[in-house]
């Protein structure tokens, strides 16, 4: 092949050659190079990070996916996997010099195995489709991100996604029994929970596409609970609501979900969907319990009593599915609703120990007042996962910067309280720079060892998760002494 650009080929010609090779191994129409169509993939749910992918491919099988990855290796071009593109941390942000591998043509439910309580699906199947495939049999797939109608199981595995009900049922990692992956060098490997040795399955879940591409997922199916009770409790203040949460958990109750919204979030939801929450509420709490009918009845009576004792001025219990939906409607609409009361907003995602919630919320209030930036709080109160919505007017000079400051300071609060900079949205490109606030260089270097074991050439979703990407060869094979970072000239970078 002739290279017209000279000794060091620019990405263009390399990609052109790669595209021709890709077209030879993929079905017709599965390689996209048309600039207009490429642009539709330029961002995920975090829309202010954009990059037009060099090439987009739409493989239909594991074999095709492996062939794509091998071609990427041949040409040394990076690749990024993409599911539905609903990620909120820029994890699926493409590379202009690379290939975006979209799983939208791998959407089959391959097997439903009821006696063994599991299903095998392709990565492009949406979260909700799994439940829909088994609902008639009284089963469901438990992790329920709010985006479940569109987000893919491949994306859920990459992000270790949670949902409102993960308080009782856990996250994606607790519900995946096996994965088939294409490793960053193009091998097809099965990671199985029943394998002896290192829990590579567990380590892969949540690795945000940096350890390879998932091509098949075996998930656990649960029986639909016998009874579900949903309680809406209205409080005058967020402190009272917080106290109720602590008392419920402290009382030995593990609800399926405990969600809280503050006054501003309620205001937004009312304006958007008319959810008719009790007037004058400074906070509402949704407490959902599920399980055997006898147990659920007892527990929800206790939860009701606790809410009342914590100062709830109004309590509603859903009498059936319709009323349950009505209670959840406001909560489900909250993110989108905020868009109607503010021209622009940042969705933050951080975690604090549950008992630190009241203090942290008061601190957020102070930050908000100090910077003149409104913050609406919607959160998974049961596990301390905050989703502050930082509202600003992007036409006002300096407002975006102030909002960014408030948003970043909220993460500092989380770290100061022993929490996390992300509970479910992932690190992606968005929070890579915050990682050193939570982890030391040694922690990050150790994580990098895992990265290098899977992806020595750094081709799988490079530039995500870790603050300073570097080649695996840069880390000496054996490190000795106390200051290897100084030796490698990296210590002053932070």
């Amino acid at each position, binding site marked *: 092949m002739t290279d017209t650009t000279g000794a060091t080929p620019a990405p263009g010609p390399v990609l052109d050659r790669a595209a021709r090779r890709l077209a030879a191994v993929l079905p017709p129409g599965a390689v996209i190079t048309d600039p207009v169509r490429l642009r539709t993939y330029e961002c995920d749910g975090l829309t202010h990070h954009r990059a037009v992918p060099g090439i987009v491919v739409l493989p239909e099988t594991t074999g095709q996916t492996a062939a794509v990855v091998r071609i990427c290796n041949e040409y040394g071009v990076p690749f990024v996997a993409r599911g539905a593109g609903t990620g909120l941390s820029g994890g699926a942000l493409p590379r202009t010099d690379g290939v975006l591998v979209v799983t939208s043509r791998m959407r089959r439910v391959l097997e439903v195995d009821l006696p063994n309580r599991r299903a095998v699906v392709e990565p492009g199947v949406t979260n909700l489709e799994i439940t829909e495939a088994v609902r008639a049999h009284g089963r469901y797939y438990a992790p329920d991100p709010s985006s479940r109608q569109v987000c893919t199981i491949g994306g859920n595995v990459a992000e270790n996604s949670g949902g409102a009900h993960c308080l009782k049922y856990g996250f994606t990692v607790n519900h995946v029994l096996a994965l088939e992956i294409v490793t960053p060098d193009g091998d097809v490997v099965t990671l199985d929970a029943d394998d002896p040795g290192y829990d590579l399955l567990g380590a892969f879940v949540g690795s945000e596409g940096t350890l390879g591409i998932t091509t098949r997922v075996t998930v656990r199916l649960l029986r639909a609970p016998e009874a579900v009770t949903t309680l809406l409790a209205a409080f005058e203040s967020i402190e009272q609501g917080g106290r109720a949460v602590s008392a419920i958990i402290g009382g030995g109750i593990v609800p399926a979900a405990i969600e809280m919204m503050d006054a501003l979030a309620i205001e937004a939801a009312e304006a958007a969907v008319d959810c008719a929450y009790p007037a004058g509420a400074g906070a509402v709490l949704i407490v959902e319990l599920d399980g055997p009918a006898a147990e659920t009845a007892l527990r929800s009576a206790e939860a009701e009593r606790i809410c009342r004792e914590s100062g709830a001025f109004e309590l509603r219990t859903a009498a059936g599915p319709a009323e349950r939906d009505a209670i959840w409607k406001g909560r489900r609409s909250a993110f989108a609703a905020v868009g109607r009361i503010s021209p622009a907003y940042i969705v933050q995602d951080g975690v604090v120990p549950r008992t630190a919630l009241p203090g942290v919320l008061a601190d957020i209030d102070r930050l908000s007042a100090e910077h003149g930036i409104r913050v609406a709080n919607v959160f998974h109160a049961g596990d301390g*996962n905050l989703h502050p919505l930082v509202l600003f007017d992007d036409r006002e000079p300096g407002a975006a910067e102030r909002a960014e400051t408030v948003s970043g300071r909220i993460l500092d609060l989380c770290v100061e309280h022993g929490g996390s900079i992300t509970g479910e949205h992932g690190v992606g490109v968005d929070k890579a720079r915050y990682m050193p606030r939570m982890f030391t260089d040694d922690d990050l270097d150790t994580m990098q060892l895992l990265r290098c*074991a899977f992806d020595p050439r750094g081709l799988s979703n490079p530039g995500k998760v870790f603050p300073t990407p570097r080649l695996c060869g840069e880390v000496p094979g054996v490190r000795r002494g106390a200051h290897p970072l100084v030796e490698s000239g990296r210590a002053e970078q932070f």
Partner: protein
Amino acid sequence: MGAPHGGGPRGAGAPGAADAPAALEALRGTGAEIRDAGPGDAVAGVSPRWVALPGDTEQVAALMRVCASLDLAAVPTGGGTRLHWGRPPERCDLLVGTRRLNRILEHASGDLVVRVQAGTAVEDLAGVLAAAGQELALDVPSGGRTVGGVLATAAAGPRRLRYGTARDLLIGITVVLADGTVARSGGKVVKNVAGYDLGKLFTGSYGTLGIITEAAFRLHPAAPARCWTTVRLPGPESWADPAGVVGPAALATALAASQTEPSAVELDWSAPSGAVTVCALFEGPAADGRARAVQDLTGGHGPGEVTGEAPSWWGAIPGGGAPDEVLLELRVPPASADRALRAVAARGLPARVRGSLASAVLHVALPARTGGPEFAAFVSGVRDDVRPLGGRLTVLAAPRELARRVDPWGPVGALPLMRRVKERFDPGRRMSPGRLAEGL
């Protein structure tokens, strides 16, 4: 590889007798308690030269730096209850005991979270948590096990059905690597997706990647009531009965799918003949009613017996834990449990089978006097039978003359990736080398 830091002489292997005093002095310099190893310190038959008892993570790191500079191989140990499990290490100079790392660092009862040092005994932790009405829902067999040992061997008990295993309850970990690097991942909150989850990687690592020094777990409220329903089923001949007598697999499947939500469904069986005992645990405020409600699921086997006490065998690993025990782990998709049990019975050896029937993770103990050829035939025969079902048989412990006749794991597709992980974490092969599998 560069020259070792610290400038000590380094031969082809471990330091010879001549520099032993220097090594001892360097080890003592870490502040850890150091003593000569005795006969009770052997790791799967391999005797270390010294035993170190560090008092904190920093001392563990200092020990690992000494090992790195003198090329000493180290094996971590907790209660020492499972040192005969796994394969013999390729070399072992230093046994690093975590017994003195036994502090409960933080019990945030309002957050249902606990942080402990890795040498904390599981029973001691349970006692502290019980006082607050809480528990770590990892009902591993008692008897001196430490938190770190439970993680390193990925041990779990009956309630894996409801709460999962160690990896599902672990939320943060501190480890010391072969070069003395101290690394943490996770934290002390139950929900957290920042960075890779190193805790998962170290679960089941048998000390081959580094030394676990601290761990944080999510806790559960202790159940206010517990009840067990026990059913006895006839032996395997009747499960094939065309009249459709319910076998253990069907019973477990029905129980696991039922609205009574058992926390565990266990099996105890003395193969090749004899009745099978199946027992389900119910926890929670309405436990008694739920335990009684399952009686109509027991098919033609009569009403189960409902008790407020667990049967004596509950949660105990068969085989007794003696250094010469022969213990295997059999896993199949739960609906195939009958066929897996028949595969065991068909070999004609007096096997004791016990474990989680609803998850089909079963321990199989064979008599210590089992002959080498019989053992090899058992392993290959059961493997042949369960492979088509998607099952696997792993040798957990066996005297060397038995173990050497078989591949302890059978085929594992992810083994090459595991080896690559090992090469990155421990390129000098000083951490329990070869203990988990060849190359790990």
